[in-house]
């Protein structure tokens, strides 16, 4: 184990190194550019043994990753925003072919207008692509969750690709002390890079990506569904093994001051740190507030979320994404999780921090106050926080 001062992108590059990743096709895009740079540097100075492919687009990055993983190599790439959107088509093919590729994402807003700062819309927009999705709160988590992503993705009961999201700049470009585990311990956790699935091998010819008719296609999709369901258990096992080997504890859903809370905030990613501070301050004033952090978004941890939130009066979901025409994704999925449960908390959605707008303590106080207000009176279900509503109404007309 070595303590290093690392930016988020460097933490994931070191994760690739200690996981003994063999092939890294990558295309630079802000804010994940430092990943291919660091990989190139680690290879150039002999610290890392891997084949780096400086591809000509993100589409090709993931396509090359599919070729590499289908040939049995442990494979990783990184991207963000427009790059992830360009990969959209290929994401479904990676999961459909059941290839355990891991991808680090610098979560960034999508154009237009162009914006390079933090938002989780890019990965949320890919939630139906059949990839597991992990979200890091800090750079230590970025490194750890990348290792865990490999452990789960490569498990024979899963064999699905995984993305690990970290917020643009807040994590990707910010230095934090990170414990980089020892290679040997990592090998104990992950096993050597040996494929546990059929590969492109001239001694055992097989056809990958055949043309499948309606009489067989649905079973392929149902297989993915079942594998994703199985991953729920495998993720818990991986978290437990990780704790035993490395001492750090992860859960799909982590509570903070939530035991007797009437109002619960639900957060995901780097916004959680500020939320924790807000909860602490509010508790000092005697407010019964708590916090739930989401680390895994796919598979959606429905059971754990219901268990940990069911006794609250209000759940205030904080979404750093928006499905225009409805609501934020965490709100939608949490509300759907409660669909068949009679006694349930009121669930409200708060959209904030889009395009890298700072998420401040006062934003959480505002969220808390609105949520508290809703105990006695009707409040809006979908609330935009720290946005100049009047300026928008002037152009678009009032809502």
């Amino acid at each position, binding site marked *: 184990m070595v303590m290093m001062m690392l930016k988020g992108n460097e933490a994931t590059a070191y994760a690739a190194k200690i996981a003994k990743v063999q092939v890294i096709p990558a295309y630079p895009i802000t804010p994940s550019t430092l990943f291919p740079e660091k990989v190139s540097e680690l290879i150039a100075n002999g610290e890392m043994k891997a*084949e780096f492919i400086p591809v000509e687009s993100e589409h090709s990055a993931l396509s090359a990753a599919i070729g590499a993983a289908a040939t049995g190599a442990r494979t990783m790439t990184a991207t963000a925003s427009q790059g992830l959107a360009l990969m959209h088509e290929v994401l479904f093919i990676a999961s459909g072919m059941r290839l355990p590729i891991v991808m680090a994402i610098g979560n960034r807003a999508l154009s237009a207008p162009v914006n390079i700062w933090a938002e989780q819309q890019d990965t949320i927009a890919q939630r139906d692509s059949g990839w597991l999705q992990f979200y890091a709160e800090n750079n230590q988590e970025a490194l750890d969750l990348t290792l865990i992503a490999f452990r789960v993705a490569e498990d024979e009961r899963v064999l699905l690709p995984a993305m690990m999201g970290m917020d643009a700049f807040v994590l990707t470009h910010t230095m934090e002390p990170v414990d980089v585990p020892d290679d040997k311990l990592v090998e104990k956790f992950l096993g050597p890079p040996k494929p546990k699935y059929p590969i*492109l091998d001239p001694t055992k010819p097989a056809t990958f990506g055949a043309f499948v008719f309606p009489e067989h296609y649905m079973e392929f999709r149902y297989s993915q569904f079942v594998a994703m369901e199985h991953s729920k258990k495998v993720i818990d096992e991986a978290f437990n093994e990780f704790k035993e080997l490395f001492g750090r504890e992860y859960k799909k859903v982590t509570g903070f001051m939530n035991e007797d809370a009437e109002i619960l905030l639900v957060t995901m990613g780097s916004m959680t740190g500020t939320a924790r501070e807000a909860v602490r301050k509010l508790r000092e004033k005697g407010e019964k507030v708590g916090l739930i952090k989401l680390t895994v978004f796919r598979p959606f941890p429905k059971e754990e979320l219901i268990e940990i939130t069911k006794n609250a009066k209000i759940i205030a979901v904080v979404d750093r994404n928006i499905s225009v025409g409805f609501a934020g994704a965490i709100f939608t999925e949490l509300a759907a999780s409660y669909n068949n449960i009679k006694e349930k908390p009121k669930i409200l959605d708060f959209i904030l921090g889009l395009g890298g707008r700072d998420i401040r303590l006062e934003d959480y106080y505002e969220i808390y106050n609105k949520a508290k207000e809703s105990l006695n009176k009707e409040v809006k279900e979908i609330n935009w926080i720290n946005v100049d509503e009047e300026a928008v109404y002037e152009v678009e007309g009032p809502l």
Partner: protein
Amino acid sequence: MNFENQEFFAPGHRACAGCAAPIIVKWVLKLAGPNTIVVNATGCLEVFSTPYPHTSWRLPWIHVAFENASAVASGIDAALKAQGKREGVNIIVFGGDGGTSDIGLQSLSGMAERGHDILYVMYDNEAYMNTGIQRSSSTPFGAWTTTSQVGPFNILGKNEFKKPIAEIMAAHKIPYVATVNPAFLSDMKMKIAKALEIKGPKFIHAISSCTTGWRHDPSKTIEIMRLATETGIFPLWEIENGDFSKMRLTYIPKQRKPVEEYFKPQGRFRHLFQDPEKIKEIQKMVDEWWAKFENKN
């Protein structure tokens, strides 16, 4: 080792009668042998050869999408290297003209520029045949397709010239680029065998008749493709390391046949005969090409 007596592309696939693509594929694989991994861009070949749960491929084969076969092959190259298994394995990509000259041009260019040891074989049937005969950048000047329709306001069909994809690939200064025609089997075999011997990116442009899209009798495939070269419309040549000054014509017809002999049996050119001036125009373009290159050889 010679594998010419072995079949790596099994019969019983669903190609149309008279399709030239299987002829090209089968010969490439015979020359490559069993130590080969095949990547296929989306197109007729992928569809007719892998109707699940059947496959014609007796070699490891992968299809990912339309525009990215070269990138997939790049990943395979890297993975074999990383695992110490690269030695002796051929990586061969098959793409149609759409997957090569159009939607796949970027990833092909990237693969060539990075210098991967991959043989790319384009089977050029000169339109998007898989979706039903739509024009591609490789459709020849004057050809009818379902998106270059012929009518009083568009008498030519396609008004634009065929994209010179093999020249574009040669301009990448890759070690080997050649045009081949299955109707000239020994020339095609010689070039494929040569390409397989060379390390680095290789590009082979194979003309590939589509009886459905070219609108000709399925029994005439070889005859018509032979005419493509004997009229000088599809010349056979090779260029090494992008040195255009040393471009070598591998077949020079003693007497080039008039272009209308190639056009006549094909429904896609039928409208040209209403306006003989257009045929003369095409003949002139062909003659000019030969005047420029024939003397060099």
